[in-house]
């Protein structure tokens, strides 16, 4: 986790170069992530912040940091428990903490109403519920983003951005999130909860957000 964070910040610093206040944008972002169904993660709000250094009126580079607290969908993590001559099937869900961070670049048309596109690379860390995971367990790997939207200028140093992104999680294994020990995985009624094939690969997750951009130096 920390190695990827350092790499991401380093990349951002490298591309940012010497900073000037009027070239620097910071903006909190609130949105909703619809994770790919097969990930077993329910859709949830994601809070983030962008820090962008504007190289010119059309191009900017910077870093981002996001956090979300989604829950898992119990139908992907069924468990079987037997008590003497009685067997019960459960759908087990748990809260997660998803942290995403990395470098990004923005290209926009400029003006009071502008279109923009953005992309980036970094990492994501998914922290499992300590109670369900019996300890501190997290899963990290690369994360990429690509998207775009519209930017509405509300003043010389303020703007509002509406955007949609594809959050790309590579090497995603849903089994990593399972709170069910193998000995409790259903064997007698395996599809009482509709069976979901194992997912192992790249997950494309849709993220829609609104950003409030603040330029400490008043903007260009």
């Amino acid at each position, binding site marked *: 986790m920390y190695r990827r964070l350092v790499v991401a910040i380093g990349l951002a610093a490298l591309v940012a170069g010497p900073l000037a206040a009027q070239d620097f944008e*910071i*903006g*909190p*972002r*609130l949105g909703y992530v619809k994770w790919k169904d097969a990930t077993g993660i*329910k859709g*949830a*709000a*994601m*809070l983030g912040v962008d820090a962008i250094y504007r190289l010119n009126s059309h191009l900017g580079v910077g870093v981002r940091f996001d*956090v*979300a*607290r*989604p*829950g898992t969908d*119990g139908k992907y993590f*069924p*468990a079987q428990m*037997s008590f003497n*001559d*009685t*067997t*019960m*099937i*459960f*759908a*087990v*869900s*748990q*809260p997660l903490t998803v942290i995403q961070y990395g470098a990004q670049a923005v290209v926009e048309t400029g003006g009071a109403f502008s279109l923009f596109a953005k992309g980036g690379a970094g990492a994501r860390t998914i922290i499992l*519920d300590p*109670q*369900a995971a019996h300890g501190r367990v997290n899963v990290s790997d690369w994360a990429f983003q690509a998207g775009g939207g519209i930017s509405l200028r*509300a*003043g*010389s*140093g*303020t703007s509002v951005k509406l955007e949609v992104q594809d959050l790309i999680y590579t090497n995603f294994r849903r089994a990593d999130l399972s*709170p069910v020990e193998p000995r409790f995985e259903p*064997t*007698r*009624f*395996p*599809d*009482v*909860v*509709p*069976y979901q*094939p*194992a997912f192992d690969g790249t997950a494309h997750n849709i993220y829609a957000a609104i950003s*409030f951009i*603040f*330029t*400490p130096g*008043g903007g260009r």
Partner: protein
Amino acid sequence: MTRRPQSGRMALFAVLVSGAFLACQSSLTEVTEAVGPRSFDFAVGPAGSVLPGGAAYRELVRTLVQRHQVTYEGVLVTSDTVVLLASTNTQDTTATDSATTVMVGSLRHLSGNGVYQVWAQAPDGTISPVVGRVTEYTHVFDQLDPITGDSVFVADSSDVAASGGGTYAGSDDPLVDSVAFRIIPADPGNTVNPFVNTQVNAVLVTIESAQATTPSNVRFAWRRLGIATGGSTSSDAVLRADTVLLATFTVGSVRTDSIEVTRYARRRLTGTGALTFGNYGGLDIVNAASPNDYIFAPRGAGLAGARGPEMSVDMEELARPPVGFYYAGYIVDADGKGVLVDTLRSAWSADPTVSRVSMYDADVNDLLPDIVAGEIRHSQIRNCAAGSGQNSCQNTMALPADNTFTGYVNFQLKLEPKGGVALGPNKSVTHLGPLPKAVK
């Protein structure tokens, strides 16, 4: 300069709103949610007391085993005595096979023209159909003796195929206990009788689509008689050492010129006995228990669960069915009436190509899932009440969706003949499990 505080407040407001939204999300605790009703479990174990079977034996009535005839030449009469003066004293001995019987039980009714047929195999490998009379033995009822209080078994019999026949369609009448294929040479029409004047190495029972002249490969019951005891000819003048005496009786007559005494002895060949159930391995003139045979015996066990309207039975290490048979599961009520749950399928698997595949052809298809060295490693019988709409279930069991198993007392795993009509339970039961009280 005045815009900075405004944009700063705006950003601060956005952060606060975002944080509140994030914090107010639900599902921030671990949730364990029960899915559907609980399963009441019960074990399923081997039964096998009513598998198709029976006995093959050969009854010989040696007529005139000893006939003694005295012819008078004259009579000497004194005051108190009559003396017969014998001039000749003849004695002869002949023997005739009177009947050969193959008795078979637990034969389910076969559909269409399907019939059971009995065959005899000679030491040279020739297999000939047994032609004769077929008699059904019926268990009429049990009753209590009004005096002793003992249970009295009352049986009856009736011919279902007259002499010259030799096939039997089976019966699903629970009162029918067994059927006898009996060859009586004296009966008209029994021209093809391999038991008469021929050595027989084995007798076997097959399933045919119609009366046949050569046997099919469904040779599910047999008895190897062996070379030493397999043959006897009606011309044997002397009783063979391998027979046992069942009964004797004497008939005599006095004529004006002679006295004739005939002794009858009813003897049965030894070396005959119970039929074996499985796959007949063909001629073996050396071994009485041939390594070529597949002898079926119920094997393996299972764990079943009655879960709401669903019945699911997981079986482990079942013996493969004999050729011509398949497994099916029933639940049975106290009166012996049953409802079909389903035929055997392979166990559930995440791979849909091998999950719950029909094991109807497990008798002959080595490529079905989980078939290893004569056994079915993992398999399942599962179904849900019709209309219950259970997930991933056929929902075709002819039972109500509510209180589905009320009144039913046990689960039966059975072997069904492939040519048969699945009309009911209780025959060819290989495994049995009592339903738990909670669902009965």
